[in-house]
């Protein structure tokens, strides 16, 4: 029953990279809860440690079964996650104006995180079944668009624009990867360029203001703009080698907002400088390329598209988060994978790595 090749082909590299990133995250979180203004919240560190351990277990579970089972049960996984999102709408906990959490006894989970995996799985199934080298026509794209719009609408309702945007970006990347047929692409492109100005005219003035502020945080110097300035000061003041572990002053005086979640990179960059931050980004790059190599080596379309979708998820979250704290991107609440505080985020990322390992260690099965 147990094939020795599983051990032989086991992807220790992926596991190592994930553990390394998680470790760096715990390091930064430690700095936030000891040196930072959140010293009263040392419990957060412990919680993150527990979630990290639980994530490792989930990862093991996710590479033990054959990922082809996912192909078969893709719809069940999808429906289950959508039901979780609907449950949030009814029973979710309200936290500062949004409703994103399901409270299950001692733990709170954020279903919008795990939904990203469900969307990747269900799209991988659909695209792998219907792929042609000429690409997908508009008619064929109807189903995947519907599959994405349902969770998108539910997440926008919470509201959690960052995650909703991510779902669309991941799905879009996967769709472009499996190719859109040339004429359909042109059609989509032109109708899009025509529709955007039209929609702009229909918007109310305050809605336009909101979008402009979202695109350019400087327009809101007392809110997002101020946060970005503080974040840029924190990152820049790290200079080449950083201020040293637990010595970040921007961190210590709580000038950074959400320093344990969305702005954790700023804390890290302030303390470890260009050397440390460049290494952190390089590790992410390595992880993504490693994952794409898994997709490359896999000989089964479902596995390839699945691995590609997971890489897209990690890629977008890193680029949006790091880009935002450095002032390159709009201010959106997207956690930095493995590093930001947040149980659901860590668990989702560990599941993603588990699935990558799963695809990687079973590549021989088709040879």
């Amino acid at each position: 029953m147990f094939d020795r090749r599983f051990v032989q082909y086991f992807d220790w590299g992926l596991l190592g990279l994930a553990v390394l990133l998680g470790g760096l995250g715990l390091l930064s979180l430690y700095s936030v809860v000891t040196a930072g203004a959140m010293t009263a919240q040392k419990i957060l560190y412990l919680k993150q440690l527990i979630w990290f351990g639980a994530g490792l277990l989930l990862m093991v579970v996710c590479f033990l079964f054959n990922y082809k089972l996912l192909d078969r049960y893709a719809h069940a996984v999808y429906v289950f996650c959508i039901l979780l999102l609907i449950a949030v709408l009814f029973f979710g906990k309200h936290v500062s104006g949004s409703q994103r959490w399901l409270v299950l006894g001692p733990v709170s989970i954020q279903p919008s995180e795990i939904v990203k995996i469900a969307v990747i799985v269900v799209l991988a199934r659909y695209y792998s079944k219907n792929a042609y080298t000429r690409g997908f026509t508009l008619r064929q794209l109807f189903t995947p668009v519907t599959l994405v719009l349902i969770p998108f609408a539910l997440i926008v309702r919470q509201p959690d624009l960052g995650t909703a945007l991510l779902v669309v970006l991941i799905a879009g990347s996967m769709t472009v990867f499996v190719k859109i047929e040339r004429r359909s692409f042109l059609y989509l492109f032109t109708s899009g360029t025509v529709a955007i100005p039209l929609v702009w005219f229909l918007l109310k003035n305050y809605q336009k203001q909101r979008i402009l502020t979202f695109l350019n945080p400087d327009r809101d110097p007392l809110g997002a703009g101020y946060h970005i300035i503080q974040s840029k000061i924190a990152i820049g003041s790290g200079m080449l080698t950083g201020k040293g572990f637990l010595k970040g002053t921007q961190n210590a005086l709580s000038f950074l907002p959400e320093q344990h979640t969305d702005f954790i990179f700023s804390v890290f960059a302030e303390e470890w400088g260009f050397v440390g931050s460049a290494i952190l980004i390089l590790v992410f790059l390595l992880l993504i390329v490693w994952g794409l190599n898994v997709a490359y080596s896999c000989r089964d379309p479902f596995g390839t598209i699945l691995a590609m979708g997971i890489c897209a998820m990690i890629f977008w979250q890193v680029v949006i988060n790091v880009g935002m704290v450095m002032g390159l991107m709009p201010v959106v609440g997207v956690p930095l994978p493995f590093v930001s505080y947040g149980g659901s985020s860590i668990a989702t990322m560990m599941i993603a790595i588990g699935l990558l390992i799963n695809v990687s260690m079973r590549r021989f099965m088709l040879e």
Partner: protein
Amino acid sequence: MDKYLKTADSDWYKQRIIGVILCVFACFAVLFVRLFFLQIIKGGELRRLSENNSIRLQRIDPFRGIIFDRNRKMLVDNRPSFNVNVILRNARPVDQTLNKLSKYLGVPDVELAEKIAGQKRISSYKPILLKQDIGRNAVAAVEVHKYDLPGIEVNVKPRRHYLYRQSAAHLLGYLGEISSSELNSGKYPELRSGDLIGKLGIERAYDHYLRGKSGGRQVEVNATGQVVSILKTVNAHAGQNVYLTIDQDVQEKAEELLSGVTGAAVAIEPSTGQVLALASSPSFDQNTIVGGMTHEQWQAFVTDPLKPLTNRALQGEYPPASTYKILTAIAGLEEGVIDENTVFCCPGHYRFKGRDYRCWKKGGHGCVSVVQAIAESCDVFFYQVGQAVGVDRLAWYAKALGLGTISGINLPHEARGLIPTAAWKQRRTGIEWQEGETLSLAIGQGFNLVTPLQMAVMVSAIANGGTRFKPEILMKVETAEGRLVKETEPMITGKLPVSPRTMELVKQGLWEVVNTDKGTAKGARLFGLQVSGKTGTAQVIGRKEGEEEDADLPDHLKPHAWFVAYAPSDDPGIAVAVVVENGEHGSSAAAPIAREMIKAYLLKDQMRRLILANSGKGKQ
């Protein structure tokens, strides 16, 4: 040739993955360049900024809207208040600095140290308020010795200022720090802990107009906390100005006459329902509240047995006493129990079911019709009318006239009052309604409770011929620049179920109360003006049978005095309800207050008409 990709042929995918990897490299290259730019190229500059935590956010407080009366007389505005703050990291050694500062302020340094110790979260770079609203001399002293007082700063903040001391305090309300329950309610997303919010009256009811929107600026500060440059500014938006329907002259007149006694007075314009005055006594000084009271002062204030915070005009519930006879008369006439010619004879008491019900006039009123009964306030007449109408029909008329119901005035904590029915008593006490109780009810004693505002609404509806309006307190709202935001319209809440003939009889009775020799309120007469009204004397304790006149009662058991009125009788411009707690007689304690309020309002009105008429002539 297009190829179906279901098979394991993955060369096509491999090519596309190479494309994907190139895109990933390109994006990460941008991240690296940006990182390099921030940390290496701009690193030195940003390190310097971080050293002093130099970029700070300063809040710009909005100017709260001003409150005016109906004649554009300013009632509430803002004045500058000079506050002393300390920034701990710049004030070292703190003890020494506080010691020096205490001399200039004339405050013991222990008190200043307590302010710092009292902070929930001490932060060394955020200003901590030491003392607010210091005098101009203290400002001068601190500013002169500025270099001797490191880390001490004086800033100017607008402070709410109530121009007429103790006047309309309940109506206007006051400001206070937002409470944690208000913050958590989610109704004020833009407010933070420490922000001021209206806590009572107009300040609370129209807080959303008055508040405005705060702005702020990003500033760069140097190592000692001085602002070096202003980076960005978002201007604050001033709050909107509120115009009330109140006539401050009438309001002040009512308060002047109520001073020293406990009670309330309400005046309404009958043709619109606009409230001209809403006074409650005793009052309080809002300026001392917004100036900050100590815990002891506040405790003494809220536990004062006279309850100065209670707005008796709309929270005070009193038995209506004889003013209720207006209602009993209407019910009797409309139900056909009596007509204008019905006469009951009053020997000074009325025997019903083996018990004597007394009339206030020992010798009796003789035989009287409804108009005379109102004018002379004959109890025996109304005992018989009430008995015939019955408790539940009386309650129906009371509700129709606005008693025992919320008037809908846009002010917090309005009381409902109480109009009993037989079913209510059964439910409440488990005891059946006794017919004798209807007799007490008919003359406004018993379970009945009404607020002065309800009585003013009722008499105003009678004055205008039968239309009940929602009492309106707000005239209009304007922006600071004078653009109209909102203007209120009279709102009808009901028509009185009263025929014109009944109305005529009741009005005749009310006129005779003031203007005939037998009337009970001769003290309300005004030279050159016809006033109509009704007195009332509400027993605080039940009169026992056989007990003699209650002249020697202790003060707190003396009856409450009522007077409701409107004027001029033929074309009413103002309706008034006045209650004086333990004032004994409506005619002597309450009627003169109503008279002076009417005078203050109508004389000015007549003067205005005269001037208008003269200027019209001038043009011809």
